[in-house]
């Protein structure tokens, strides 16, 4: 071997074992005074030593540059430590954990966040007023704005009445970069065009259980949807892209009253991890125009689903089928903004919101959920993972429903379950056209969000 002796010497010196950690005494032992399995255990100076550092020197040689390089990370952790301790000792953290951390008597306020769809990332706030008991809130005000120019404000009131719940709500939504790809199952992604959509609504709803798993909801909502040209930076504009065939309702305002009746059968329990059960819902809406544009139409929506427990604990297959259909009265005109579309992140998830639009929409979804983290116990606080496949299409006439026209998306995500149920999900969905990432606080069959919650798609279903 002809390696440099210097290298070997330096190597040997740096890698020599440490000097013994024990400072041993040179004095001879004294007679034993205690008998153990080893014999007497003396307690004299000769058998006593101070222990200090342990570990061979080479470890310190290896660790020194590592410590130097990672020192900034160490400083960061010290900063985190100071911040965390300060926040904990001054009561900041418990309020951060609450959805509405600001409390002034029975008024609660807090921030809100949204991500997903073409509105992008955004935030806002919520103000709740309750009757000094959790879950007894009766007034909600919400406002959200996103980086891509979506603004939405809503106010809702609710209270018990005649054995059920009454909700009153109103709101306004402005979407500066609403999108239109054309109508029908063969519309093309390359036909993307932009427009500005403005919605407002105000209405009343009455929700009442009918006994057992049956429930009903009546709703009367004045709605107004207007469309116009997009912002200059959003192009191509709808009018430009679809110049030969501008869809009905563009650059018009559709005002009217939407009267709805909904019947629901819900045989599930809980919202976090629904127990096995079936849930179905049928809804019929009648739109009567009050303005100068557009005609009356009927709209029918049905959805059905089931939660099927699988092997082991908390493994569930959630399956859902949904259909919506807009039926003009006579030869009436229905603005394109009131047609069925995939907007909610529940239908055709791998596609952009409002990618598919027509009179009818059919969607089938299967989602497999399994637990990946439990805080303490099964069926309780934790995080579930899920994988799904989602398939469907839009159609103008029922005879257009054909497997060759179906669009499929797939993906997965994580669902957070807290002690009072489902808290939110983050999902990535993929289709042949795009990949969508969504952060949502709602889920399949989440029927809680009505007029009170200020959900625009409940108020102005399309």
């Amino acid at each position, binding site marked *: *071997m*002809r*390696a*440099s*002796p210097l*290298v070997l010497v330096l*190597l040997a010196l740096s*890698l020599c*074992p*440490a000097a*013994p950690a*024990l400072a041993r*005494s*040179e004095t*001879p*032992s*004294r007679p034993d005074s205690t*008998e*153990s*399995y*080893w*014999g007497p*255990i*003396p*307690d*004299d100076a*000769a*058998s*006593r*030593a*101070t*222990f*200090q*550092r*342990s*570990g*061979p020197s*080479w*470890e310190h040689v*290896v*660790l020194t540059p*590592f410590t130097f390089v990672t020192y900034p990370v160490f400083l960061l*952790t010290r900063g*985190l*430590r100071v911040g*965390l*301790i300060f926040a*904990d000792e001054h009561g900041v953290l418990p309020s951060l954990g609450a959805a509405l951390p600001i409390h002034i008597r029975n008024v609660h306020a807090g921030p809100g966040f949204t991500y997903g769809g073409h509105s992008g990332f955004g935030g806002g706030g919520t103000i709740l007023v309750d009757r000094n008991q959790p879950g007894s809130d009766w007034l909600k005000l919400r406002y959200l704005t996103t980086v891509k120019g979506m603004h939405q404000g809503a106010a809702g009131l609710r209270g018990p009445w005649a054995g059920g719940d009454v909700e009153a709500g109103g709101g306004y939504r402005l979407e500066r970069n609403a999108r239109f790809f054309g109508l029908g199952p063969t519309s093309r992604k390359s036909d993307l065009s932009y427009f500005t959509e403005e919605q407002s609504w105000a209405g009343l709803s009455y929700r009442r259980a009918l006994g057992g798993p049956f429930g009903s909801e009546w709703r009367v909502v004045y709605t107004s949807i207007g469309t116009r040209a997009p912002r200059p930076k959003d192009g191509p504009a709808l009018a430009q892209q679809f110049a030969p065939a501008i869809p009905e309702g563009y650059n018009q305002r559709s005002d009217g009253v939407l009267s709805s009746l909904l019947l629901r059968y819900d045989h599930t329990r809980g919202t976090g991890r629904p127990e096995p059960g079936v849930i179905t819902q049928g809804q019929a809406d009648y739109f009567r125009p009050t303005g100068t544009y557009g005609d009356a139409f009927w709209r029918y929506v049905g959805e059905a689903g089931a939660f099927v427990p*699988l092997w*082991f604990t908390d*493994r569930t297959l959630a399956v859902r089928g949904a259909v919506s259909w807009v039926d003009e009265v006579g030869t009436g005109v229905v603005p394109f903004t009131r047609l069925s579309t995939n907007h909610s992140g529940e239908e055709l998830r791998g596609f952009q919101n409002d990618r598919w639009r027509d009179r009818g929409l059919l969607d089938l979804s299967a989602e497999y959920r*399994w*637990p*990946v*983290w*439990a805080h*303490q*116990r*099964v069926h309780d606080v934790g995080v579930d*993972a899920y994988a799904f496949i989602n398939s469907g299409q839009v159609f103008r006439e029922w005879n257009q429903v054909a497997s060759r026209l179906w669009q499929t998306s797939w993906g997965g995500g994580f669902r957070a379950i807290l002690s009072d149920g489902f808290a939110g999900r983050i999902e990535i969905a993929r289709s042949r056209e795009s990949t969508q990432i969504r952060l949502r606080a709602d889920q399949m069959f989440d029927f809680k969000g009505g007029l009170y919650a200020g959900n625009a798609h409940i108020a102005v279903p399309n």
Partner: protein
Amino acid sequence: MRGTPISRFRTDGPAAMRARGVAWLALLALAAPQASAAPLREGPVLWQEDDRKNVVKAPVERNPNLLWTSTNETFLRPIGRLVNPVRLGRRVGTLFGGENVHEAGDVNTLGEVANSSWFTNRIGLFPLSPEKVSLGPGDGRGPSTEATWTVIRAKTQGVTPGFDIKDATGQVYLIKFDPPGELGTTSAASAITGRIFHAAGYNVPDDGVVTFTRDRLAVGPKATIRDATGVKRPMTEADLDTILHRVDRLPDGRWLAIASRFLDGKPLGPFSYKGIRKDDPNDNLRHEDRRELRALRMFCAWLNHWDMKEQNSLDMYVEDGGTKYVRHHLIDFASTLGAAAGGGAQPRFGQEYTVDFPAIGGRLFALGLHEDAWRRGRRPEGLAEVGYFESRGFQPMEWKPLQTNVAFANMNRRDGYWAAKIISAFTDEHLRAAVSMGRYRNPESAAYMARTLAERRDAIARYWFDRLPPLDFFVVRGDAVLFHDLGAERNLYPGATSRYRVRFATAAPNGSVSRWTDWADLTKTEVPLGSGPAALAVKGGDAGESSRPFLAMDVQTSRGNGWSRSVRAYVSRASGAVIAVER
């Protein structure tokens, strides 16, 4: 070998490449098993750590923030260990038989932990009667019942209220109750675990299960209470009644609680499992390098002590015979043996960390096609006083506390073996004696607990004794070396016939040995020194006693499935004493 002059040393070329290769091999070799790091020397074996020297000024009380320690232990320290280059290198070294972490620093040449302010050798080294185990650190009687107990302080916050009392002898006790609906669980766990830890050698408070009626208690004139809003005010009898009204009672109307005697001295807060207490001049060895803290992992696995945060320890500034120093204690054993201090024990406790990334990742990629065993965990049927504690499926090295622990992460094989040696020293009688102090009302609960402890004990012992042969306690008696086969003595291999063989060589102080003799079979755990292979080694040694003053003795055992690794004992040729043991 002719070297290359420095001026002509190059960083490329065959010579430099060979040097780099040598460096890497050396690094790997150092991670591989080594001969005794310290030279062999004649002289007394060290049995006492000199860490009880007088400390004039009491160290400052520590009060670590629970949220920070949880965050640090759950996220930051595990990531730090994952990217630590020394640990990475050692992990590679384990492929070549090396250790995952360097040796503990408070171990003598026989592989034993020296007595210290942290640990006192008891059942592991000395015969201990079951009665002594049941007494624990005190006299086993709890608060004196000669007069009423004077309540001096109370707390109402938290799931389980409690109060401090002073008995007729002036001793102060903390009285804690079981969580609602769990009468007898945490109180029994505290008493039993405390006794086991004490017998093992740890410093623990004197916890005992007590029962009392209302007239045993009287609120002292200066008693205070901190109410639900945190405000401190004078305590009244009505306050005491309110506390007692909230807790469960025995069928005969008495209350059952754990009485924990206040430790002597001034409390200094918990100790950290990492580093040292800088203002304690006696604390010189990093805590994560102490064998008794590393091996605590196995004791906690045995007892399912899942709540191993540092807040469940306590340093006390004590005075002992005029000398003041810091003594280190383990405290609060309510969350052991399947129970939970705040109630709501879960089968998950002891199976995973609070945020267990490998487990989460495994579940994610397994797509839910595998069920964690703990999800099927059940409490024993009909035994309400026993929590989630069983021996079925118990894997010692799979056990995890809720929070990672840096000392536990430093446990190596020898630390694990040392713990197994002590744990296996508890006989069934010892365990029954400890369990009896839990005062279970249902004898089936006591029987179940004792049986489960025994089975988990055997699982731990077999795990480590299968990896490091349990040949121990080598002593010279007359002209022979006697040793113990702990596996056979403690009946861990029933039905197996144990065989032994030995070989000898002379050894120099640096551990180098002469030519080994051939293996010689032994009929018992006794090796003659004046004849047989020992004599052959001395006779055939190529150096005299001055240059090879020690006899190295390799012993192996076989239970019918091949010979084990060797345990090597060194005997001084001059004094005839065993001076070191390596395994």
